[in-house]
């Protein structure tokens, strides 16, 4: 028989810390549930069940018809275009910001601590990224709709700004948490920062960066739907019109198109990762 209390040296020293943080996490979650008036059982009351079932029943069958489908095809194409152009612009902004923000490419940090000036500059770039992504794309879209008028251009600009903030932040983090042995060796042997980026950082992290970029492209497709609600064009504008007219059949066709688009993004990501693996 083993003794009930093991020898102190054989007790897991991490256990009390783990228990403490698990309980703290649970204790923090409870007031948040209050704040969100989280009462899921309302969903299953007969009255709400009836009304939601009625709404969902209207979804079937999805609306077809040559004219409507042609319109939807055209708007889907515009949605993909908005997302793609927005992402392209976001990348143009995010890549230089990533290079400026990431500590992996710091030459002064090689022997230990980063110098003061590069540290301040990197922090400044990080704050710029925070500002860019903390303003929701919906707000940017409302601003740009006033500047450039109703239409896809406002959507493209809104996605470009918010997404450059997100991409820049996550790219910088991917690079910092990734394996950077090769990069450090290049910098230690006298390469420039950009040379180290192209010969060390990029080949090491290409798959990770690609899959995140495609995931963000997928998010951009979804978010262009929301942007359509405020008049920034694309499938979203069609969706809000159908919703306002309580036309469930049209709504379900549009949603099906979204499912297909997200599926295509997923498939592209898997294929590209295979190529880069």
């Amino acid at each position, binding site marked *: 028989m083993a003794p009930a209390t093991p020898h102190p040296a054989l007790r897991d020293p991490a256990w009390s810390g783990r228990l403490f943080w698990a309980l703290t996490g649970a204790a923090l979650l409870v007031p948040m549930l209050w704040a969100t008036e989280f009462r899921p059982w309302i969903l299953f009351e007969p009255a709400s069940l009836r009304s939601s079932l009625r709404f969902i029943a209207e979804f079937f069958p999805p609306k077809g018809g040559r004219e409507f489908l042609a319109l939807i095809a055209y708007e889907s194409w515009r949605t993909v275009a908005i997302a793609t152009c927005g992402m392209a612009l976001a990348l143009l902004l995010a890549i230089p910001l990533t290079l400026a923000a990431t500590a992996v490419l710091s030459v002064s940090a090689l022997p230990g601590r980063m110098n003061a000036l590069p540290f301040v500059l990197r922090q400044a770039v990080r704050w710029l990224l925070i500002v860019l992504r903390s303003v929701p794309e919906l707000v940017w879209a409302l601003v740009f709709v006033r500047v450039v008028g109703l239409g896809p251009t406002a959507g493209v600009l809104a996605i470009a700004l918010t997404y450059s903030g997100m991409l820049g932040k996550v790219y910088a983090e991917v690079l910092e948490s990734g394996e950077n*042995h090769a990069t450090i060796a290049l910098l230690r042997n006298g*390469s420039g920062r950009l040379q180290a980026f*192209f010969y060390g950082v990029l080949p090491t992290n290409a798959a990770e960066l690609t899959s*995140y970029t495609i995931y963000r492209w997928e998010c951009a497709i979804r978010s262009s739907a929301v942007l359509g609600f405020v008049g920034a064009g694309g499938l979203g504008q069609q969706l809000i019109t159908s919703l306002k007219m309580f036309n469930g059949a049209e709504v379900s066709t549009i949603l099906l198109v979204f499912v297909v688009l997200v599926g295509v993004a997923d498939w592209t990501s898997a294929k590209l990762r295979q190529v880069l693996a």
Partner: protein
Amino acid sequence: MLDLSSNPGLRIELAALAARHPAAASDAPAALKSLTLAVAAGEQVAVIGPSGAGKTTLLQAIACALRPAAGRLLLDGEDPWSLPVARLQHLRGRLFLAPQTPPLPPRQRTVTSLLAARLPRQSLWTSLRSLVYPLGIDEAHEALQRFDLAEKLWSRVDRLSGGERQRVGLARALVAPAGLWLIDEPLSALDPTRAAMAIDTLTGAARERGVTLLATLHQVDVAVARFPRIIGLREGKLAFDLPASEVTRDHLLRLYAQHEHELAGAPPPGTDDRPPPPMIVCR
């Protein structure tokens, strides 16, 4: 092709140099304690000693990868740490530090990994062009040939075996525009035949070009047989600094006291300092 005149060997002087690993606490004992030695341009030196003696730290300190905690390092009579960052980086381009684990991105091709060693003397534009179509294929091929790897020129690095990867890491030195080679444990993944060939290639190429060569070695017999000068390190201090012909069995026994198994051959498992394994990022 190989421009011999552009690679004059670097001269090294250490004056009471102390250094500790950047991750170590500032009150931890230094890995190198007050080391004084000089290496002339074009000299070939093997650094031996038991695990944890500070061999890798010594190479890193000379490579300007570690700032000395005390004392001074002079490269060609110049204190690198008094230079502005840009000039220090230029100086780093004149030395080549080969870590024990070859720093090769897994998805890169061997040819690109090799040509990466030339980056310090290339403009950004040239190095980008070289990514589109490699510039200096013949130079890379020749370097690989000297390590008996010519057929791996176009292979991806992650398709190579551990020993092949290590030899690619060494072949990089031949391509680098450096006047000082600092090679950490060049033979750790090689069988005896390959090891002899690799060390002959390194010392031979260094002699041809007049490059200064400093290598840490676990294989004491190889060090004594192939290097004219041997430095013994123990607990961060200089145990001896002698011409190879004057190193006796007695010196070695004292150097490796309590570490006799390392003197006999293989290092004990788990004592070599490898980089941390790559982390997986989930988002």
